[in-house]
């Protein structure tokens, strides 16, 4: 099975997008998940719903609003222009921003679940052992939520790889810049090049299957700590 140069370009782009998005997601979602896991604020409900929104919204709706806000007249667009970054739509970094929003629930949920499973008593024990709030977070919360982080990273990565609608809405179809694997497959099918589409689509099936297999293997190993519900 041979892949064209364009295919490799798409695969490389997809993996870069997924890796960078996953890293950013882990950084952003950790404090969000921690807050959601511990807060008693009335904002917990609204923020949870907001984070989960991409689960139910059509990607076109999400992409549409991202396009508007990242665009030259949008709120984020104004900001990026003032920072001298130009506007993000139809660029790789625009895709990164979109992926972060799009995959956020898949990263927040497992981390939050693992953090909620941490008993308050462990944190109190750490406090009586002279560990301050940051110390407690790094020495107790992070290690105890480790499997949640692994699940979150796998889910975030895999979900970003499978992104299509949002990419098309705000990234278009620029080779090497925004043409990810799913868009490349779409192009092949549009052009009735079914053989080429097969190769990439088959790869995607294989990748997704292996990813989920790894995930379930991990969940079995760690018991119920990494439970993930959609």
């Amino acid at each position, binding site marked *: 099975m041979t892949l064209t140069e364009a295919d490799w370009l798409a695969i490389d782009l997809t993996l870069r997008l997924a890796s960078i998005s996953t890293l950013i997601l882990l950084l952003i979602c950790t404090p969000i998940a921690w807050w959601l896991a511990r807060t008693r604020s009335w904002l917990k409900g609204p923020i949870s719903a907001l984070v989960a929104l991409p689960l139910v919204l059509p990607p076109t709706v999400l992409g549409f609003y991202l396009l508007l806000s990242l665009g030259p007249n949008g709120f984020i667009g104004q900001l990026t222009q003032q920072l001298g970054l130009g506007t993000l739509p139809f660029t790789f970094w625009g895709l990164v921003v979109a992926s972060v929003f799009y995959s956020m629930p898949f990263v927040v949920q497992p981390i939050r679940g693992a953090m909620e499973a941490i008993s308050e*008593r*462990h944190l*109190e*024990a750490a406090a009586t*052992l*002279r560990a301050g709030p940051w110390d407690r977070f790094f020495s107790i919360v992070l290690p105890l939520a480790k499997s949640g982080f692994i699940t979150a990273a796998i889910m975030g990565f895999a979900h970003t790889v499978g992104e299509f609608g949002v990419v098309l809405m705000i990234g278009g179809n620029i080779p090497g810049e925004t043409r990810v694997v799913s868009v490349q497959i779409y192009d092949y099918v549009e052009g009735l090049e079914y053989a080429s589409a097969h190769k990439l689509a088959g790869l995607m099936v294989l990748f997704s299957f292996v990813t989920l297999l790894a995930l379930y293997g991990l969940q079995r190993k760690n018991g119920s700590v990494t439970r993930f519900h959609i």
Partner: protein
Amino acid sequence: MTVDSNIQVRFFLQRSAGSNESGFVLDVDLMLQGRGITAIFGHSGSGKSTFLRCVAGLEWPQEGRLRVLGEDWQTERLFLPAHRRPLGYVFQEANLFPHLTAQGNLDYAIRRADLRAGQPFTLEQVVQLLGIGHRLQQKPHELSGGERQRVAIARALLIQPRLLLMDEPMASLDEQRKAEILPYLERLRDELDLPIFYVSHSVAEVSRLAHYLVVLENGRVKAQGPLAQVLADIQTPLPFGEDLGVVLQAEVIARDAQWHLLQVRFAGGDLWVRDDGDAVGKSVRIQILARDISLALHEHSDSSISNRLQGEVVSIVEDRHPAMCLVQIKVGESILVARITRRSAEQLAVAPGQCLWAQIKSVALVR
């Protein structure tokens, strides 16, 4: 320079009634000893655990004042968070960190220890004291309940605390595990120079371990003072139920090998107890329950009760149940408390100043 050796505690904490819990008020104002074991006794809902959590800084009382051995932990303007208070805390469930081995749990404390006052507790000493040397490489779930609790105590000591707080450390253990861990607690008490607050709802544990006793009921202090004194005071009836009784300091003076008995002497007379192998000359604690003492006007040498002491009635009060009353009897230097029916008291015409015989059915060595 005189070192303040007391622990001043004043807490007012109010929880309004919620949907699934009733309201609660903790209102205590105490001057406690900065040495020995102070037992905080109470039934569930008495506020004893809340009291301990307030001392630790894990609860935020609306008003509070806490001064420990000359150091302010809480005033009107100051509230030291838990991680800034030099204390060790042993939880009801051992509460070890599950991702670390026993050794890892101890290292967690060693790395964060408060070394301002030197390092009175070394790893070797603590490991040896609690007998956990052979289990250090295990994860918490591989340890027995008693071992977990001993590792938790070691961890609390290695933080080099100035005050050790223990919240019913044996409540989650079965009788066998309790018996296994009690000797370690006694060693802690006898070998370390460290004040301990020990929360418990067990009269047996308190009688065995404590020097001082604070009795809490519905969030308020019902009685407090040196253990023997509080237990012998019948003016404030304690919520001890069938376990009400006195604790006396005694010394083993003789052994009767034929009948497996020991003779112990306290400030009031000699008693025979079961021989559990304690050496002659050893200092022991004995407990005599109020329900195990009967009173007689004359000495009855024709009964099965061999422990008979003559004493003088000090006072008599009604017990919690209307059928019963409590009688304080002075035997030598010591006070005994007997629980008899009011009818018997009436028939014997028990009154202060009267001389009579206390027949003691059972004496427990609590060591």
